[in-house]
């Protein structure tokens, strides 16, 4: 007798109420894209397959599983680089949409899968393409996943470094222990003094990884404006984006003031320092 015969009847057929209000997840565990979501899923799928990197990164697959065998994320998450590659190579809009809700964010981007793949697929790379699309289209699941990154994104967009020592606060990094976070308790001095004890003036800051000149940060922001990164971020977090623009406007004013103060020195120089106006 088939095992199906032993299953409760209601699993095999929906009740009238269930049929009127279908569950968000299919019985397979796959999330269904419906209505406007379905249209968005189709749009994303089309963009994904048309991205030039798709043809460069996805070369073929024997389903050998070497990639997943070495994958660190596969040991702790419901995640498999083999599955991601299969979706990239043969999937449809719904399977891609499903993977983009959560699974793509399990990847560690360590490139071990790439190293082990006999076909030479760039699996980490194709997952990055999926992630980019989830950011570009501002998926709700992506917003939630990236919600804790406001502080590091602010640093990254305004001075171009990812961390600062004043981010390593005991409340957020309790698991790192007292030596990584509690200089004042261990050494009886402030974190400012601990940074002063680093023997390079550019490293003696708590607000960034190193001191970044205003010109450098403005050039970086120009790159973000010109290459669409600011628009990507606006789709994900418009409030954060407006705050970043305000910060940069203040830095531009600061830069113009400094051009006045150092006019004589700048006039004697060549190269970008002479021509960059913020």
């Amino acid at each position, binding site marked *: 007798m088939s095992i199906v015969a032993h299953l409760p009847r209601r699993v095999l057929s929906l009740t009238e109420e269930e049929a009127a209000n279908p569950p968000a997840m299919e019985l397979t565990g796959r999330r269904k894209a419906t209505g406007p979501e379905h249209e968005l899923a189709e749009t994303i799928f089309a963009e994904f397959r048309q991205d030039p990197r798709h*043809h*460069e990164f996805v070369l073929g697959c024997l389903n050998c599983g070497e990639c997943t065998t070495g994958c*660190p994320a596969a040991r*702790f998450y419901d995640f498999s680089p083999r599955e991601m590659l299969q979706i990239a190579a043969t999937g449809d809009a719904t399977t891609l949409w499903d993977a983009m809700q959560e699974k793509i964010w399990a990847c*560690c*981007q*360590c490139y*071990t899968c*790439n*190293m082990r*793949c006999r076909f030479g697929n760039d699996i980490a790379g194709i997952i990055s393409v999926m992630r*980019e699309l*989830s950011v570009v289209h501002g998926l709700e699941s992506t917003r939630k*996943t990236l919600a804790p*990154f406001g502080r590091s*994104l602010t640093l990254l967009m305004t*001075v*171009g*470094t*990812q*961390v600062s*020592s004043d*981010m390593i606060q005991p409340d957020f*990094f309790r*698991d*790192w*222990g007292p*030596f*990584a976070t509690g200089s004042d308790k*261990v050494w009886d*001095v402030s974190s400012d*003094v601990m*940074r002063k*004890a680093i*023997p*390079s003036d*550019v*490293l003696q800051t708590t607000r960034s*990884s*190193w*001191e*970044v*000149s205003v*010109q450098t940060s403005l*050039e*970086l922001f120009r*790159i973000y404006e010109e*290459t*669409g*990164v600011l628009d*990507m971020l606006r789709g994900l977090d418009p409030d954060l984006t407006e705050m970043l623009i305000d910060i940069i406007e203040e830095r531009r004013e600061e830069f113009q003031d*400094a051009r006045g103060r*150092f006019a004589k*020195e700048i006039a004697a*120089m*060549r*190269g*970008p*320092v002479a021509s*960059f106006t913020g």
Partner: protein
Amino acid sequence: MLSANEIRKVVAERTEHQKGTGKKVVDVREELDRLEDRGEVIVHRIRPANRPVPLTTLFGWTKQIPTDRLWHHKSCGQCGNIPGYPSSLLWLMNETGRTYLNEPHQTSCTAWNYHGTATSNPVALAAVAARNFHRAYETDHFPLIHCGTSFGDYKEMRKLLVENATVRTKVRDVLRKMGRDLVLPEEIVHYSEWVHAMAPEIVARKKHSLTGVVATVHEPCHYYKMVPEDAVYDDRVYAGQRPAVPSGILMELGATVADYSTWYDCCGFGFRHILSEREFSRSFANLRKIRPMVEEAHADVAITSDTGCVTTLDKSQWIGKTHGLPYMLPVLSDVQFAALALGAHPYKIAQVHWHSASAEALLTKMGIDWTSAKAEFREYLRSLKNGAAPELLHPAHGEIENYFAINKGQVLPEEVPAASRVPGATAPIVGGRSE
């Protein structure tokens, strides 16, 4: 894990496959010359003033490693929370008489963010890389990349800019709006390659015996798994079957390099995970890396050569004791370890106090009197607290550099006639830094 021979075969086959598309090149350095001839890029060449040392890559290609007149491309993670990493490297350069620039006119590669949140794109990443490349070029110092991810990212970006004319044009346009141009370095050089090239000079200055010190090496993924053909291999290190760095310098210094079963695994950093999902990072680091290092190899120290790896392997251990994993194995970068072996101050230079797993038992084994050094450092902190001027490895920058990426009077490379491209053709050198 694949052996180097197998990786070589895979990469060669992939390259052949991609060549068939007509879009890929085998060795970007050859294509760089052609692009320069067409006026599409400026190639930042390694000159005699850079005192290059040849090393060998996975494919047996020669890679020239500049050892002097270097532009430090710092790592945001190192400087942010393990500052003994860059300070040890600067100290080693001073000790070996090398000159450099350590400027506030550099951004990170921004690839930590890209691999963590994907809030960027290849054109932006390439433009960020090219901006830093141009800054190094205009100062006539060759870029030396501190971070494994920056190294991997910059290899990818250089390849992208060489192979993709559309990206190249877009990036050049962006750069020209800020008065810069598209410069690509002849070689992308990781600092651990500098260490490997400098091994004879470093070992000659050794002050502490490392006999009896057992080190396990964590090989940073982005050093050799991204654009693998450009990583350095050496027949003297694991018979050329694993990358030569950072194992080579440990062997040269006389430490015992011990193997363990999960050497090829990543550290658990995960880019996103280390900030917002550390339960994964710490589980992976403790179970897949630290435990085998201690239980299989009986290591005294774990050595690695990347930002995220030192961070994850070190900082994840403190919480391990709540799960019955009370190892607290010291985790250092190769340059911290080498600087300590050469007599660097463990707190003022190697800054071991920023690490979660104490290095003090290791220091004892290395014959370093850390108790006196610690007392001295505590006194130094007290003096800083009272307003004393800090001790520096290079001259401090002036106020103008808080705002402007100034030209410091160096001869711009395009103005140097080829015949005069010899040591001494550029500006005088003051202290550890060119001025």
